[in-house]
């Protein structure tokens, strides 16, 4: 077990929320990958089932049209929900500046569950909890943006979607 890897992991959410012992346990199941400029880390349409932590360098998110939409930088995390509920990437991830990433796939998380359940439990709780601020923010933003009464929304489907559930 590399102490450097444990220290690197502990700087990223959700690992930063865990006791160091759990980070050390989880570190045995992550992968470290070097990336060079132009490397494709994932393609739009691929199964998104992996948590990716950018340690150094940068990862550009590129739409199918070829337009660069966003950049993931050192210290930033991508795909925290993937290991728990895989979806599909809507953009490709292409290395824009050489560096390294750490990843945890759904399969690796399952293996962690099988071999060290307490560490997996704490990690998955923290991964799930990391969705909460984004969910609260999205809900708040929705409420704040709806400055006009729902009844005055002229799009019937949107009006129905915005109405409180009864």
């Amino acid at each position, binding site marked *: 077990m590399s102490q450097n890897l444990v220290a690197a992991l502990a700087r990223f959410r959700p690992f930063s929320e865990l006791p160091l012992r759990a980070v050390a346990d989880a570190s045995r199941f992550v992968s470290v990958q070097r990336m060079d400029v132009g490397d494709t880390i994932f393609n739009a349409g691929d199964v998104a089932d992996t948590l990716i932590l950018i340690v150094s360098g940068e990862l550009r998110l590129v739409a199918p049209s070829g337009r660069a939409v966003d950049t993931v930088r050192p210290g930033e995390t991508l795909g925290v*929900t993937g290991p728990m509920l895989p979806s599909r990437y809507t953009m490709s991830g292409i290395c824009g500046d050489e560096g390294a990433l750490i990843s945890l796939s759904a399969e690796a998380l399952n293996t962690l569950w099988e071999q060290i359940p307490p560490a997996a439990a704490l990690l998955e709780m923290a991964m799930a909890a990391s969705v909460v601020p*984004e*969910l609260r923010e999205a809900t708040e933003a929705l409420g704040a943006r709806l400055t006009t009464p729902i009844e005055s929304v002229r799009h019937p489907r949107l009006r129905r979607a915005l109405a409180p*559930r009864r």
Partner: protein
Amino acid sequence: MSDQEGLTEHNFLIDAPRERLAVGSSLFEEGEHGEELFVVVKGRVLLSRRTQAGENVAVATIQAGGVLGEIALLQPGPRSASAIVTEDAEIVRVHRRMLLERLIGRDPLARAFLRACAQLLILRLRRARDLAGALGAYERGEGDAAVSAWLDRYDAVGDALVLDPLKPWLPR
């Protein structure tokens, strides 16, 4: 053992004591600290929030077979809404401490339940993003097709599907 195996025999939600609550009972108040998830077995519970003007606005009604409080279970903190019983109800409480004890105790059913709660949250987040996308497209006057494209994604994960991960757990 698979995630779902043994649910009928050892499902701690089905085995848990049910609490009966009369109309008007409060489950929790907005702003109050929470660490529990509630399953509505019978009856109805109204979720409401206070606006900046101090007015209470209905957010959703949770019917039998629904759940509320899943955020507090995974990340304890202030409740984002108030919950009040609007039709005599039976509920089951799942406290974070109980779930953690079962997880640490290597209970495979607790693992499956945690995964289901996480998936419920993720689906809610995806729905909120899609609805925000539809509203944004509408406000920017991007036209019906653009709004509908967002709503197609939103409807693809319908209200019922959001609850799907938890369905095997819910008392019938």
